[in-house]
């Protein structure tokens, strides 16, 4: 570290604790309190990156989130590396490794730099005008463009870090811990408002924190000393929460804000592990106070992008806060007073200031006078026309400005320097204000956009509100807060303030040069390499709106989102097009304010928590018995139970056979269950189902089909009449939630007159379904005192019984076509009943089966599965279920839609059975069906919805929807596959036991 660049009098750097780090493989060190940027500067390293397009050498230019150039790759661990990180925001820590981006082989020798020589050929948007010949070569051109674009490298392994979320509700949120933010926080908290103050830096105080200057005093002490006491006094306030290292990312409507808190990025490498890296705060604030300060503007002139060209206020922070000299021979270039603060600070620290180049006529504000007293030389009414040097600036060329400021005159002065501080005035950080929907107004006297109207309960204070002088900041802050928080006692009234006042203002967006514009490179967007010339080119070609210019030149679209470039882009457009800036408007600032990691946005909802997992009461049993699971919505359902090393097909064949030959047992707990009570329950069912319910006897079950108002099948299930006004409805697993809310909707909005109450009992009951010829014997062992005779307990009826004194409901219903029962019992006992049934069934080789076998068994019977055999375009008639549509009922949901001109057509797609000529050929679900094999393209008549090999019929069977299928019984059709064509015949949808004998077997 070149000692002489680090001065020793900084209160903010702990020079006793040395921190070693690596940059581009070089071992370096800095101190606790440094940022990577300040440490690099202290090591006399300016060149840190190459620009996006021309690969020009670029150096550190700022000291905060507006930094356009110094973006580096942090770390080289494949899972923890982070691209595009601002050196100015990285707090130095032991073990930090960083490297330059977008350069090859190295930042010092970058082959990409040849682009700089081609730069005349590649102006803004050149790519729209070329690479079109030969046509098919774009792929190749693109390959190289993509390779050279991009900045850092993405990690290639999963992130090991943890991210978290927190919700926060407060009365007042203050964004920004500078002088005005601190005043606001103290005032709000003292008035018993639950207050939160956040700041993105690691300590509060903003720039006033290191403002030790004669020209800025409060109550006779330096402004920094005064503020220091104020900050200390905050600790005593009980309803104030302070969050540092927390940056406001997004300000949405209804005062909903997102803030990212950095918790481990500043820690030494070995301290980071197993801690939350970043926490995203989701804040709901009754009132929001924005105190985000202002950014210094650069100046736009030829070669204003060389390493060593730094914002003047940043030079000041580096010397006053970090104790780092940005150079030994520093020149300053300004259009306002603030550069003189820098000059004074440098002078105080014994850094020689060559001169201040000021585009204004001589002015004599307090601070300027003070600077001149210190012997600082000023070139009045002058401008820098060029900078020299390649990897580092080594001199500047100065010329006098003509009176109107449009030309340069007299002879060029050459001034050697190793650093140039530039100050183009200040831009209020209005980003959050506009994000929240606030409207800006343009202030002509000093060319700034300031907050105007907002619908939300919020204000902006301090320099983000356009107050730049210390006295204005304090005075206006006090007034605004009093009004905003409706209070009158404020500690900060009648402070005694000394503050230098800027007298003369002058601004030139694009400074004149002695060369023709075309021969110069005045950069606007340093990262995206767009120049003033590019803006003018865009305008010349007819791209007039700011949005067009921005997109055409990519100005303001780099990772700094144009924090430094937007104003000048607007200024140059306004000048060139001859419109007022106020009328031009700004580009919209979109969230986030600074880039936000995906990790922080997602929080801990990764891996096991990516989505909810729902489990049935018998889940553990399925796991113990080696079930494979299927995701059905959020449910985990047993899919099949492979024995030994059976594959799915083998397992399903075995399960299906067992279920029909003897007995099978299925966990049906995921079916939706809705308890329906009320004197109008029957009428209600009449309106929601297609069939009639009033005459259903108590104790009986009935299958129902539910439509959407558009007439398409929506859901189905069996509903049981438990008593006069009491029904239990079952829905499909996937449909449960939607059906309930749909029915509630109709009850609350369309039929409020009905006396009906719905209560979901889906999770209250576990459902054990046993089927097969031996199911009766098994059940009789489980519930000995229940008469299972067909006379007492026929198909489609239910019984309320006790199993070991636990109430349960046994339905004799069947989705397999077998004699079968469904036992519904409180979930707490469901696993136990399941085991009891299983034990009782042992002697009959009762076989647990999963969803796959269930699908096969029902397909053998031609029962549909809503969502598989229907896709939202099938009416009951299409499903050949005309029988379920009550002709007597006046109306039900969806009825009218069934009679529209296209829904009553006879030749719609209809559900049919399919048999392959080759009984061993299993059709692919989703395969299409055609009548001709020789045409291409060929009309598709429909597709296969369900297809299985039936072990019970010992042949393959399938369900399909086919255009005009009802009329095509016995018709031969084709299923064209990629490499073959399968011959099929249309059949009835019921393949097994057409007479339903097995139901009572």
């Amino acid at each position: 570290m070149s000692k002489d660049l680090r001065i020793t009098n900084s209160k903010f750097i702990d020079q006793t604790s040395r921190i070693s780090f690596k940059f581009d493989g070089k071992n370096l060190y800095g101190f606790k309190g440094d940022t990577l940027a300040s440490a690099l500067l202290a090591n006399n390293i300016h060149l840190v990156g190459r620009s996006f397009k021309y690969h020009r050498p670029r150096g550190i230019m700022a000291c905060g989130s507006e930094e356009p150039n110094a973006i580096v790759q942090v770390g080289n661990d494949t899972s923890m590396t982070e691209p595009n990180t601002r050196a100015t925001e990285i707090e130095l820590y032991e073990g930090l490794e960083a490297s330059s981006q977008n350069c090859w082989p190295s930042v010092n020798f970058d082959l990409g730099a040849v682009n700089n020589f081609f730069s005349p050929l590649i102006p803004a948007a050149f790519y729209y005008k070329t690479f079109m010949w030969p046509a098919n070569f774009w792929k190749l051109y693109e390959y190289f463009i993509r390779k050279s674009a991009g900045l850092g490298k993405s990690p290639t392994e999963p992130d090991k870090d943890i991210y978290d979320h927190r919700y926060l509700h407060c009365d007042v949120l203050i964004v920004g811990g500078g002088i005005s933010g601190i005043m606001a926080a103290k005032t709000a908290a003292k008035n018993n408002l639950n207050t939160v103050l956040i700041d993105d830096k690691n300590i509060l105080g903003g720039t006033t924190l290191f403002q030790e200057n004669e020209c800025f005093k409060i109550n006779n002490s330096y402004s920094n000393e005064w503020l220091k006491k104020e900050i200390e006094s905050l600790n005593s306030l009980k309803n104030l929460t302070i969050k540092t290292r927390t940056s406001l990312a997004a300000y949405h409507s209804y005062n909903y804000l997102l803030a990212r808190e950095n918790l481990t990025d500043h820690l030494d490498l070995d301290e980071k592990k197993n801690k939350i890296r970043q926490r995203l705060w989701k804040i709901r604030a009754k009132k929001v106070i924005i105190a985000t300060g202002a950014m210094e503007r650069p100046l736009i002139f030829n070669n204003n992008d060389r390493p060593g060209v730094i914002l003047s206020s940043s030079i000041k922070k580096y010397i006053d806060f970090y104790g780092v000299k940005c150079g030994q021979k520093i020149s300053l270039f300004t259009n306002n007073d603030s550069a003189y603060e820098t000059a004074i600070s440098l002078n105080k620290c014994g850094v020689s200031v060559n001169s201040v180049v000021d585009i204004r006529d001589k002015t004599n504000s307090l601070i300027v006078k003070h600077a001149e007293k210190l012997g600082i030389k000023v070139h009045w009414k002058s401008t820098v026309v060029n900078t020299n040097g390649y990897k580092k600036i080594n001199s500047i060329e100065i010329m006098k400005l003509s009176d109107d400021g449009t030309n340069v005159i007299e002879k060029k002065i050459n001034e050697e320097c190793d650093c140039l501080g530039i100050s183009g005035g200040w831009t209020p950080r209005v980003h959050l204000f506009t994000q929240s929907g606030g409207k800006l107004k343009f202030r002509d006297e000093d060319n700034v956009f300031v907050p105007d109207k907002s619908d939300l309960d919020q204000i902006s204070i301090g320099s983000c509100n356009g107050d730049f002088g210390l006295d204005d900041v304090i005075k206006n802050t006090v007034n605004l807060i009093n009004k905003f928080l409706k209070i009158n006692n404020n500690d900060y009234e009648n402070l005694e303030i000394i503050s230098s006042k800027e007298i003369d203002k002058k601004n030139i967006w694009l400074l004149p040069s002695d060369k023709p514009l075309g021969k110069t490179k005045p950069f606007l967007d340093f990262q995206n390499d767009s120049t003033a010339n590019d803006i003018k080119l865009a305008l010349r070609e007819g791209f007039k709106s700011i949005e067009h210019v921005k997109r055409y030149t990519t100005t303001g679209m780099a990772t700094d989102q144009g924090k430094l470039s937007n104003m000048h882009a607007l200024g140059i457009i306004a000048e060139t097009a001859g419109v007022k800036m106020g009328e031009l408007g700004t580009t919209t600032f979109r969230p986030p304010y600074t880039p936000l990691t995906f990790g922080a946005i997602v929080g801990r909802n990764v891996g096991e928590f990516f989505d909810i997992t729902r489990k049935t009461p018998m889940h553990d049993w399925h796991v113990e018995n080696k079930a494979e699971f299927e995701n059905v919505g959020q449910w985990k359902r047993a899919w099949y139970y492979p024995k030994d090393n059976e594959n799915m097909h083998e397992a399903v064949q075995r399960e299906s056979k067992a279920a029909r030959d003897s007995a099978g047992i299925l966990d049906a707990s995921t079916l939706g269950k809705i308890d329906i009570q009320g004197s109008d329950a029957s009428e209600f069912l009449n309106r929601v189902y297609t069939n009639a319910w009033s005459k259903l006897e108590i104790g009986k079950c009935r299958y129902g089909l539910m439509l959407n108002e558009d007439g398409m099948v929506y859901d189905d299930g069996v509903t049981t009449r438990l008593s006069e006004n009491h029904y239990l409805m079952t829905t499909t697993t996937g449909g449960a939630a939607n059906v309930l809310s749909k029915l509630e909707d109709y009850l609350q909005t369309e039929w409020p007159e009905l006396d009906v109450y719905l209560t979901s009992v889906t999770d209250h009951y576990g459902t054990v379904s046993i089927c097969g010829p031996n199911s009766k014997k098994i059940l009789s062992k489980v519930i000995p005192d229940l008469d299972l005779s067909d006379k007492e307990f026929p198909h489609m009826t239910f019984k309320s019984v006790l199993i070991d004194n636990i109430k349960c409901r046994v339905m004799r219903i069947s989705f397999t076509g077998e004699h079968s029962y469904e036992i519904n019992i409180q979930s707490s006992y469901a696993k136990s009943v399941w085991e009891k049934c299983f034990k009782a069934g042992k002697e009959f080789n009762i076989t647990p089966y999963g969803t796959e076998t269930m699908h096969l068994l029902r397909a053998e019977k031609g029962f549909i599965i809503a969502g598989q055999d229907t896709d939202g375009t099938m009416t009951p008639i299409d499903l050949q279920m005309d029988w379920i549509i009550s002709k007597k009922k006046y109306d039900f949901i969806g009825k009218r839609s069934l009679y529209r001109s296209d829904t009553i057509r006879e030749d719609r797609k209809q559900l049919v059975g399919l048999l392959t000529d080759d009984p061993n050929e299993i059709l692919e679900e989703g395969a299409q069906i055609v009548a001709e094999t020789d045409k291409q393209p060929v009309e598709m008549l429909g597709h296969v919805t369900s297809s299985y090999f039936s072990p019970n019929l010992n042949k393959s069977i399938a369900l399909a929807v086919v255009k005009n299928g009802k009329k095509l019984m016995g018709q031969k059709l084709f299923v064209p596959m990629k490499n073959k064509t399968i011959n099929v015949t249309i059949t009835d949808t019921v393949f097994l036991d057409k007479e339903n004998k097995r139901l009572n077997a």
Partner: protein
Amino acid sequence: MFLINCPYCGERDQSEFSAGGEAHIIRPKQPTELSDDQWAEYLFMRKNIKGIQFERWNHAHGCRKWFNMVRDTSNDKIHAVYKMGEKPPIK
């Protein structure tokens, strides 16, 4: 994220609610009497207003009640909420 004032439960985060589209579209009492056009009008055709819109919301993860909202769709400002069956407080 809106902050929605459920007429029953009070101010809650938008994530507790689900939107139900344009309000005051009454289901025809006698659908069978309608022409295909009239039925389509009810079924699909919407004003889709830019500006003050009357719409249905459901406090799905709270009291599960449906209610109406007056919202300016051009700036998402909620002007009022009112219970089902009540007259809109704003014309």
